[in-house]
């Protein structure tokens, strides 16, 4: 991470923050690098799952969240429709300020239209 000069590192919230002691050493390593941590909802395969994970992230006082909804298990390509729906559900529930990083053609505009902030 140092060699890359990255200032933001995205991390699966469920994998690294689940369990009483699980992932603490990894989090500690990332924090010690002084980079901004962007939790993501990796591993979520439904809108409901991604929404619950994002809500949990906010409850942990994390200001940023990268929404991910898996569309295909083989390729891990995103479910674009699911992402838009999850964003709308979260916006309706008052959870705003979601961050977005997506390179897919047309997707950023749709997600920003649904409420994502960047």
């Amino acid at each position, binding site marked *: 991470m140092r060699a890359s000069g990255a200032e933001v590192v995205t991390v699966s919230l*469920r994998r690294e923050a*689940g*369990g009483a002691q699980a992932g*603490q050493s990894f989090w*500690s390593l990332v924090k010690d690098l002084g980079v901004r941590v962007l939790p993501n909802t990796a591993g979520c395969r439904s809108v409901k799952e991604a929404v619950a994970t994002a809500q*949990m992230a906010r*409850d942990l006082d994390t200001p940023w969240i990268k929404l991910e909804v898996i569309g295909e298990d083989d390729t891990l390509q995103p479910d674009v429709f699911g992402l838009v729906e999850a964003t709308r559900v979260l916006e309706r529930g008052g959870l705003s300020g979601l961050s977005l990083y997506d390179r897919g053609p047309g997707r950023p505009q749709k997600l920003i239209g649904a409420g994502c902030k960047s």
Partner: protein
Amino acid sequence: MKLRVNGEEREVRAADLASLIVELDYGDQLIATARNQSFVRKKEWQDGAQTRLADGDEIEILVRPARRLT
């Protein structure tokens, strides 16, 4: 009863979410929870009556990462 906690099958004695968090030894860490893919607010799970568990429930418990290891 048998639950799936953070993806793992577990046999637990707890009958509600608050008791489960104690049983799993989360102590006073800042956590967030979901039951059957629905977010459960802290004030809800702290009230055991609102979060009775059922056999087969899927529970997710996330811990706010500590800044440094002690």
